[in-house]
């Protein structure tokens, strides 16, 4: 008999693997073929789909939610928990073979089998606060590619227009009607190319709020959430409620869809629930609430936020830049970093902004600050090798590229090894860079890309200078802090290095 099994445990370092080994051994002893997927801390290699297809039955020896459980849908299974598999693997194997012989396939879940649905970042077992954050982050992570494609296309459109027709071109490019592209597009006209880039980008950008709202709802309610979420986001744009409205409609659409999908309905209606009833009812309610009740107040709030940002000038902007920079550097890709980043990206969604609007300057400041810490770690490992372990020096080489590409997470290995020294230095340098970019007036509308979107940034040399200044400060602070401490791992490595050198010399 062929069996597949999934093992997991809370810590993911011991029982996951003991259960796997025990099941494999017990299976072999009983003459069965057992393949185990260990969903543990050392990463999990998914079972080959061919092996799953050939399997007669499934063993869940998992104390955590089984990842991608739908792969095993329809097969007979036993669900025993990890401890039972460790203590009594032969018994578990016997139970599984009995289940296979009884031949009761588990009922396939109501929805039609759909392979590879988009992943969400939601852990069903987490607390409320964590789940709200996970819902938000799911929305944000699906939104970013739209913003990236749209923002960069628009920026390229402006660049080409500037090239083709000077400063007037930048204004004209937004006026080119779409019918012109359809009927009279000329491959030799720079302005036509610029208009093509601009219009395509603007349409992609238009999905920003609907995608945010739709995928928040998707994270909450799964597939039924997508329609009310997207529709709510579109309504939010239509009434001028922007991304704030999109956040509201995402949650509202998600919970509505979730609630309706749990109604007890007659069998005849059940089939049309996901296709007709849930999207219809939930979209209508979201539309009603947004248009009639909360759309207007949120729109006023958005307007207030925009005019507040646009009213900021001089030193206030520099302080805002320093604050956002500090947030970017504080947890390097964690929740606080993401708050600052999301604030910047959603600002891009404001319509009809001038090229040097505050929203674009915020984006530039946030991006610059997010590049600082990985670059600084790279610099520090280069100039003061002896303060870093071998692994850190290797990470330092990669950190050059990660930092230059605005991937703050490149500094995480350093922060993990020496939390507060790295964070203190990171916050110092990132805040400085954020403030400097604001002071210099660099602006940019691409949400990601780091050094690679430098041509799209205004005052690019100032931007580079600000990043470099933050990088040097962070590197200096981290070197100073690290010089004062004695790291046992590091010392052990130094001793080993010295011995190796002695051996090499005497040889």
């Amino acid at each position: 008999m062929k069996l597949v099994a999934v093992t997991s445990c809370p810590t993911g370092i011991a029982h996951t693997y003991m259960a796997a080994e025990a099941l494999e051994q017990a299976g072999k002893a009983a003459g069965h073929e057992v393949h185990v997927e260990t969903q543990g801390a050392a990463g999990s290699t998914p079972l080959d789909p061919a092996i799953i297809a050939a399997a007669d039955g499934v063993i869940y020896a998992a104390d955590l939610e089984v990842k991608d459980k739908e792969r095993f849908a329809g097969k007979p299974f036993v669900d025993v928990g990890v401890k039972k598999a460790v203590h009594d693997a032969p018994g578990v194997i016997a139970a599984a073979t009995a289940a296979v012989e009884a031949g009761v396939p588990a009922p396939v879940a109501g929805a039609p089998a759909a392979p590879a649905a988009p992943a969400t970042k939601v852990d069903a077992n987490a607390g409320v606060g964590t789940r709200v954050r996970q819902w938000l982050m799911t929305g944000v992570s699906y939104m970013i590619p739209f913003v990236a494609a749209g923002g960069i296309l628009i920026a390229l459109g402006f660049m080409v227009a500037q090239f083709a027709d000077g400063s007037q071109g930048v204004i004209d490019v937004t006026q080119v009607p779409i019918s012109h592209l359809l009927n009279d597009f000329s491959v030799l006209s720079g302005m036509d190319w610029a208009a093509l880039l601009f219009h395509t980008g603007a349409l992609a950008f238009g999905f920003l709020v609907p995608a945010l709202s739709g995928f928040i709802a998707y994270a909450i309610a799964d597939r039924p959430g997508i329609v009310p979420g997207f529709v709510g986001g579109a309504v939010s744009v239509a009434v001028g409620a922007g991304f704030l409205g999109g956040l509201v409609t995402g949650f509202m659409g998600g919970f509505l869809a979730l609630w309706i999908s749990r109604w007890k309905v007659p069998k005849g209606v059940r089939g049309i629930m996901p296709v007709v009833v849930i999207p219809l009812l939930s979209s209508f309610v979201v539309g009603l609430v947004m248009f009639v009740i909360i759309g207007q107040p949120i729109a006023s709030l958005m307007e207030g936020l925009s005019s507040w940002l646009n009213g900021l000038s001089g030193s206030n902007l520099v302080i805002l830049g320093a604050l956002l920079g500090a947030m970017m550097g504080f947890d390097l890709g964690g929740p606080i970093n993401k708050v600052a980043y999301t604030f910047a990206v959603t600002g891009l969604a404001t319509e009809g902004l001038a090229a040097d609007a505050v929203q674009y300057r915020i984006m530039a400041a946030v991006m610059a600050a997010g590049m600082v810490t990985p670059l600084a770690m790279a610099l520090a490992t280069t100039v003061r090798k002896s303060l870093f372990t071998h692994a850190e020096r290797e990470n330092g080489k990669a950190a050059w590229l990660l930092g230059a590409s605005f991937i703050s997470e490149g500094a995480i290995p350093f922060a993990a090894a020496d939390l507060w020294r790295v964070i203190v230095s990171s916050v110092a340098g990132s805040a400085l860079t954020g403030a400097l970019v604001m002071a210099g007036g660099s602006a940019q509308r691409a949400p990601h890309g780091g050094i690679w979107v430098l041509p799209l940034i205004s005052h690019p040399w100032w931007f580079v200078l600000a990043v470099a200044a933050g990088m040097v400060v962070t590197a200096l602070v981290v070197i100073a802090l690290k010089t004062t401490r004695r790291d046992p791992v590091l010392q052990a490595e130094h001793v080993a290095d010295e011995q190796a050198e002695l051996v090499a010399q005497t040889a």
Partner: protein
Amino acid sequence: MSTPLITPDLVAVDVVAADRDAATRQLIDLLAAAGRVTDADGFHADVRAREAQMATGMPGGIGLPHARSAHVTAPSLAVGKVPAGVDFGAPDGPATLVFLIAAPDSGDAAHLQILAALARRLVHESFRQSLKDATDPATVAEIITREVVPS
């Protein structure tokens, strides 16, 4: 990465302990003395939290306290032989062999594979028996280093 999973310093051959908490603590102190755990109290709290979720006693006289923790610098194993036995909540009686597994919180997958390999070896009766038969720390460390290789 190059730090071995276990050295003779991390083996205690005659642990005397009233309960699993005390036995665990003696092994944590070995890890702390070797510089593999930066904060013995903090790591102990993490191990206790894991132990509270589900007892780690295994059939065959094995106790297996473990945790992933920010206070751990390298994947490590400390082994204690407890001739008088100490209860680890296994259904068939007290543990005479205690393995304390310490995993760094930030460890990447390659880092943790050595621990996965260790857990897989622990299931084998012959492996456990050879450790029970070994009488001195050097032999215990040598057996583990030889038998536990990442697959």
